[in-house]
């Protein structure tokens, strides 16, 4: 018998979660001292690191400078040891370039770039271990890092994936579920206003199902935002305790 049973008759997924349950999320902010902002996140077995530099003067070619807002520069990469098969990942392969572009679009929508005209913000995201939802983990880590860097955001940007199995939406897909065929939708959401910063899907899906799938993804994003919020508050408490304020 080929394939895995993604959703059992009893309603459990491969790893024991129910359809709309998320994986365990753990995050830390300020993991590196040299960078302006940094964060590390674990969503299940997907582990991502994000580092932010800036805002600073535009480096390299001056022509990229924007007079009314900051330029956001994103770089996404995967560690060679991030998957079970060790692979050399040349810098700027197609997948990474695409992901970088997605991240850039996401954060252009979220960061109040108009506060920093003629400057640049660099966001580096590295996937240390990959188990599905790389983009989402990257976005969530980057959000924390951007907050850590003290750059004002419109709202938390939270990302989550959702898929569709047996007419049931599943949220926060793990690798086995992503590769099990079928639709996978990635969403980045500004939860307070319900604005979608990015929506990406690479398989066919009928529009009738899109709404249910998007709703599931949105609910998941909102749950993530609560976790991120807690992480930020806890981090603030720790930091303020240290500085004695």
């Amino acid at each position, binding site marked *: 018998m080929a394939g895995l049973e993604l959703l059992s*008759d009893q309603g459990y997924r491969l790893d024991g979660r129910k359809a709309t*349950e*998320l994986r365990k999320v753990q995050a830390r902010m300020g993991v590196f001292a040299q960078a302006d902002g940094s964060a590390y996140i674990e969503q299940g077995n997907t582990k991502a690191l994000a580092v932010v530099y800036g805002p600073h003067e535009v480096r390299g070619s001056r022509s990229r400078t924007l007079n009314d807002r900051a330029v956001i520069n994103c770089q996404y990469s995967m560690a060679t040891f991030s998957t*079970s098969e060790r692979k050399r990942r040349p810098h700027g392969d197609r997948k990474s370039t695409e992901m970088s572009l997605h991240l850039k679009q996401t954060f252009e929508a979220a960061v109040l770039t108009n506060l920093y005209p003629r400057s640049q913000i660099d966001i580096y995201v590295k996937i240390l271990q990959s188990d599905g939802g790389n983009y989402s983990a990257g976005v969530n880590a980057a959000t924390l890092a951007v907050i850590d860097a003290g750059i004002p955001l419109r709202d938390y940007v939270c990302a989550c994936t959702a898929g569709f199995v047996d007419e049931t939406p599943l949220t926060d897909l*793990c690798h086995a579920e992503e590769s099990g065929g079928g*639709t996978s939708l990635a969403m980045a959401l500004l939860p307070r206003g319900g604005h979608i910063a990015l929506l990406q899907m690479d398989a066919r899906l009928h529009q009738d199902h899109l709404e249910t799938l998007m709703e599931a993804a949105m609910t998941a994003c909102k749950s993530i935002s609560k976790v991120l919020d807690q992480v930020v508050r806890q981090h603030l408490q720790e930091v303020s305790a240290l500085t004695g304020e």
Partner: protein
Amino acid sequence: MLKSKTFVKKTRSGGVMKIVREHYLRDDIWCGTEGCVECKQEETVLQKDVHIESNLCSFPHYLLPDTNVVLSQIDILEDPLIKNVIILQTVLQEVRHRSAPIYKRLKDILHDKEKHFYTFTNEHHRDTFIEREPGESANDRNDRAIRVSAKWYSDHLKKALSEEEIQIVLLTNDRGNKEKAVESGLLTYKCEEYVKSLIANPELVDRLALTDDDKNEITSSKVLFPEHLPLSRIQAGIKSGAFQQGTFRASRDNYLEATVFVHGEGDQSTEVLIQGLQNLNRSVHQDLVAVEILPQNQWVAPSSVVLQDEGPKEDDATEEVEAEKTLKSAAGGAESRKPTGRVVGIIKRNWRPFCGMLFLSQIKEATRHLFTPADRRIPRIRVETRQAATLAGQRIMVAIDGWPKHSRYPNGHFVRSLGCAGDKDTETEVLLLEHDVPHQDFSQTVLSFLPKMPWSITEEDMAVREDLRHLTVCSVDPPGCTDIDDALHCRDLPNGNQEVGVHIADVSHFIRPGNALDQEAANRGTTVYLTGKRIDMVPELLSSNLCSLRCNVERLAFSCIWEINDKAEIVKTRFTKSVINSKASLTYAEAQMRIDDTNMNDEITKSLRGLNSLAKILKRQRIEKGALTLSSPEVRFHIDSETHDPIDLQTKELKETNSMVEEFMLLANISVAQKIYDEFSECALLRKHPAPPPSNYDILNTAAKSKDLVIHTDTAKALADSLDAAQVDGFPYFNTLLRILATRCMMQAVYFCSGMDSDFHHYGLASPIYTHFTSPIRRYSDIIVHRLLAVAIGADSTYPDLMDKHKQSALCNNLNYRHKMAQYAQRASVAFHTQLFFKNRGIMNEEGFILFVRKNAIIILIPKFGMEGTVFFENKNKPSPKLTFNQEATTLTVEGHTFNMFDKVKVTISLDASNIQHQKIRMSLVEPVILGVSVAPSEDNQPKAKKAKLDG
């Protein structure tokens, strides 16, 4: 809410490539027991009041079987007596991994509300999950997991049930497992012990599969067969090239001979011959085996002798030695020797339950008997039963449990009885089972996906569909057809062109992808039409009611509408989901009458005439392009309405209206094929008909040559033309015979997925692309095509499997298999009814034509009945006449008389019922009269005058 915080997280790894997966453990998995006060469950499955009477367990209890019990004793679990069973997730997963058919059966039981089988997700339960310990095998770990869960359950039930006490009974056949379970205080029995203790149902014992322990008792200790190699050595051997892997195909005529079909790369497939019991080494037809090729000096030629295993013999090999000697002496010369080998091991058994009959042991009071399967390729099976006297003379089913190396025959157990042999219902059941036609009643789960009655078309339906109720649509079908899947209309357009619509039942509206109803239909693949019986692909509510486009009711349809000019050229094609209201359900004859009756000028008739004239042009154009019109005589029985016995049989007659409907169905299929291929070039489900290789035509060429004619077979067009030209004066039936032969040369048309193949051509229809769209009620392929088309026009949504070419290709394989088997079953059904017919008629005299000439026989076609039979010139009890076979000219000379192909002969037809399992039609030669060969015509000369029964 984020729930993950409450879970303990564990990871597990394994395999060659390290796979790390998360494994969440939960505290919200409930026990499923009615009346449990600890669990916060909404629904319960296991009953509070358990009634099963057992000598061993006089108290209420639930059963908890381990994996091996489920795998080997699924027949027991399926029995209605067995209820309230806990199936652990560990067990379910192991079963899924090890046997797909048993997994499906287990799932069916789990879905059956009456059975009260509960799946406990123990692997994700906080208290029942265990980790594999260092040095522990996966099997041992699973056994331990089962024991831990059983223990948890019994402790949980003690705590959680206030009044009654229900115990857990662990069923396992593994001795080690049992000991450990007893040690930890669990109530544990072997499945066999438990079943024997049941008071209510002693017959259940017969359905027990034999376990390893019992086998030793049954068989003598003498080792008859070489040991099978373990899988690891087989794999190593295959890798090194020492062994070959292939499908074992037993010979139908010789139980000591078989071939192993070795799949090579690409078209490089070879056949390895296996001869003799030792070399066959307990392989059963269709097993996947590993063979070792013998050194070339031990190669043999396939023997031409017929050897039936005459049993019942006890495990005595002497007779086999004799038989094998005969085999060797019968072998041909050195030039016909083939690669010969021996089976060294079994990679995968492909055992299914087999139909057959029990032959009672001569020893009275014996409980062990030999079972003879209906399929000659399957060996006899030894079964143990206490009901032998009742089962004698019945058709029964038996499953093989194993074949130990010291047993001449495999061991099996009785599954169920099908009824009296020779009985019409029984025989139908047998032929369905033997052709693997799924024919059980639809399960409750499947039926639950049917629309709720009373059903009507809703406003939402109307909103997304085109309202075509005003059109004069009608259907034309064979008489008595209740599953009408197509209807037609034709009307004049103001611009002088005509609008023709083909409206097909919108089955995909009712059958949604992936649900149990859909899976069942996909598995069945096709509706099977037997004589006097139909095995539906979809439940009757759909096939004969909601999807059937009957007249004067509103029905949902998928319409293909063309604008066609007077040269029958398509100006415009469109597809739409619609609502229609058929104005008339006609038979071919009724439609023909309307067209021919010049007095009738109503809308329906005008529409029919329009269709008919267009169809004629379309047909002509198609034939000009080289489409073939071949013929194969189809037999139809007139069935007595009371006794349901066939009372007359005749070949089906084709009317002009048959071809009218057919023409538009072809046109619709081609239009749809083009559309779905344009839209989904990778995953369109199409149908192709490959051109036959030239050698296939040999028989046709020799046949034509015998009448000094030449048949050109280079292209379909050439073949069609030369078939048309092939006429012999004073022999009008010759052309039909030739076309029957041409049909035999053809390849099988098959479904395929466009992304997996490059050759789409349909040879028979001379169309570059083709698919099946017009019969979704009775063919699953059409449902897929409907779904593809619906997505293409934005009327429905897609789903992953539809766009997955590998999955679709696998589906096509199943559909092709089911269609082939359905065809065989249909032929077997016709054959059985022909036998019934002749049984009631006695011996009859008929005229026929020689279709083929063989070494020792001629094959005769009786045009009146569309049936074929063989006249053998060799008879066991008589000295054989002088036979001279000329292969070149395909003639056979018998005692001075030469038989040519197409010769007209007279024969007597009778039923030979000497072998109750294999009754057959016997033909004997009457004319030409050959002394010592031909027989006298039957006295009871002609059958009673055919009753003037209208074909309707």
